[in-house]
């Protein structure tokens, strides 16, 4: 399908097949079209051309309230004039479930997201993480066929975000329904997803499992957007590495060795000097400047506590296996 706003093509000829029960992430920078795709699936936007099918049924022209899909909004969109329980029961209320019955279901749903006893509060009295859970309970209580999540963890602080990631994954497993998750956080996408679609400029750059996306990125964009990559464009790849086409290597696959270390078959050795050392706690990130001025990012795990001397200016050999190089093809 395609979606244009005026002359701007937000989603360009997209073709996507999401399996039932899958945790599917749409990853991309802001403005890459991932949120537009989500809004098209939810029915808030109408496609300029193309169709959307849900379990084989064409829902392209159906209004949002007529689709068996629910959304967890980025800002949660809880109704501020209703209590938490009324919020959760809203979907049941508009479906005509009797008052007592829907309150019962809502309270059970709140209990399942660890919010028992919060039913009579107003959303404004809850913390960000609690609101997030209410939004989840509200969207899942009507048992949708798929749940859409629009950067649901974006507003939470790091610790809470990590905790919610675990809870989301558990929730998805226990409900057994499809989760379609939009995020610009590559780590979140890698952690949670069964499959990831990497978006760029309204197109899918790559579609695959987290390991596929990370280990064999299909384009320079994916290689640099998902994790960090040292990219050698065609001429440099040929001169330094002896391979044809653009190639990239992940920082953690590079090992620094003392100058003069003997060459080994299948291992590339590039001489350089350490330009910058950044201590990250679990690891240390180093920038190694090669003879031609190019800088390589290297990640060293801090497996031992080492005496900290200033390593800037040290001459080293950056070594990595040619087998770890990822070919990104020829780019025009």
């Amino acid at each position, binding site marked *: 399908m395609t979606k244009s706003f005026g002359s701007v093509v937000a989603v360009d000829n997209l073709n996507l097949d999401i399996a039932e029960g899958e945790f599917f992430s749409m990853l991309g920078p802001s403005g890459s079209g991932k949120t537009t795709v989500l809004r098209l699936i939810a029915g808030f936007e109408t496609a300029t051309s193309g169709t959307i099918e849900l379990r084989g049924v064409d829902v392209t022209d159906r209004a949002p309230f007529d689709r068996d899909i629910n959304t967890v*909004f980025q800002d949660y969109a809880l109704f501020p004039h209703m209590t938490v329980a009324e919020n959760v029961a809203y979907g049941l209320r508009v479906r005509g479930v009797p008052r007592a019955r829907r309150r019962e279901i809502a309270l059970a749903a709140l209990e399942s997201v660890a919010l028992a006893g919060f039913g009579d509060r107003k959303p404004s009295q809850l913390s960000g993480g609690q609101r997030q859970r209410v939004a989840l309970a509200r969207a899942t209580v009507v048992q949708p066929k798929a749940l859409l999540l629009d950067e649901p963890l974006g507003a939470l602080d790091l610790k809470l975000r990590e905790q919610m990631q675990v809870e989301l994954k558990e929730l998805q497993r226990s409900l057994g329904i499809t989760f379609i998750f939009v995020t610009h956080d590559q780590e979140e996408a890698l952690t949670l997803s069964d499959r990831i679609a990497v978006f760029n400029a309204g197109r899918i750059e790559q579609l695959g499992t987290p390991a596929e996306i990370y280990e064999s990125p299909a384009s320079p964009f994916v290689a640099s957007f998902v994790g960090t990559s040292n990219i050698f464009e065609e001429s440099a790849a040929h001169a330094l590495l002896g391979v044809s086409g653009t190639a990239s290597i992940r920082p953690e696959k590079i090992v620094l060795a003392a100058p003069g270390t003997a060459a080994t078959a299948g291992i590339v050795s590039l001489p350089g000097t350490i330009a910058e050392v950044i201590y990250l706690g679990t690891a240390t990130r180093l920038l190694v400047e090669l003879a031609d001025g190019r800088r390589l990012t290297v990640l060293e795990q801090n497996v031992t506590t080492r005496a900290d001397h200033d390593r800037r200016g040290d001459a080293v050999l950056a070594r990595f296996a040619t087998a770890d190089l990822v070919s990104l093809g020829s780019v025009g």
Partner: protein
Amino acid sequence: MRLSSTARAVLATVTTLVLAVIYLPLGVVLVNSFSTSTTLTWPPPGFTLEWWGRAFRNVGALEAIGTSVQIALGATAISLVLGTLVAIALQRYRFFGRDVVSLLVILPIALPGIVTGIALNNFFRTIIDVRLGIFTIIVAHATFCIVTVFNNVIARLRRTGTSLEEASADLGAGIWTTFRLVTFPQLRSALLAGGLLAFALSFDEIIVTTFTAGSGVTTLPIWIFENLFRPNQAPIVSVIAVMLVAVSVVPIWLAQRLAGADQAQH
């Protein structure tokens, strides 16, 4: 920001002066309503409650109040319905001529009353041939009362955004259910504030009223204007004026409080 003591003294003096110019005359009216003089001489020669008693027995004044309330309620009701509808249309939908409509809706409050008055008088009498009366005043007042409701509602809609309505639709609610359960509760205090202002605006309007009231319809402002210069009526007018001040302060105060409470909440 810190101000020097001279600057503070100057600002305090100017503020006091400006407020005094506004409120001292009102105080004079209040004092006059208890004065024994019938010609509003100053200083008042003595104290009496006679005018207050007479005002409450004055059939003309009481009828005028009744008429004004009726007109203000009518104009407010029309403004609430139409103002809300046009605000939703302009804020939630994109259509050809949207900016023009927006300008045309707000314009009447800036138009000189005398122009509105003459235009409507002409329109009612010669073009559609309607007898001037309470109904024509209500319609005339509604033209500018809509603006206060419209402004309040559109500001609220802009602030609440569309995500609550989208959430409602997403959870299975149709357009009307969404309006009833989500949009309207969000607008409630904005409607109250806009409605109170519309009521106050209509209640003391005199220029447009003069042109659109046929003979025999006397609103309170018209009654005051007619009686101010009649012998022995001036003190009663003062009493009515004091009551008007009291009555118009309440809606404004309520409207302000509602707006303030909302801001604290959002």
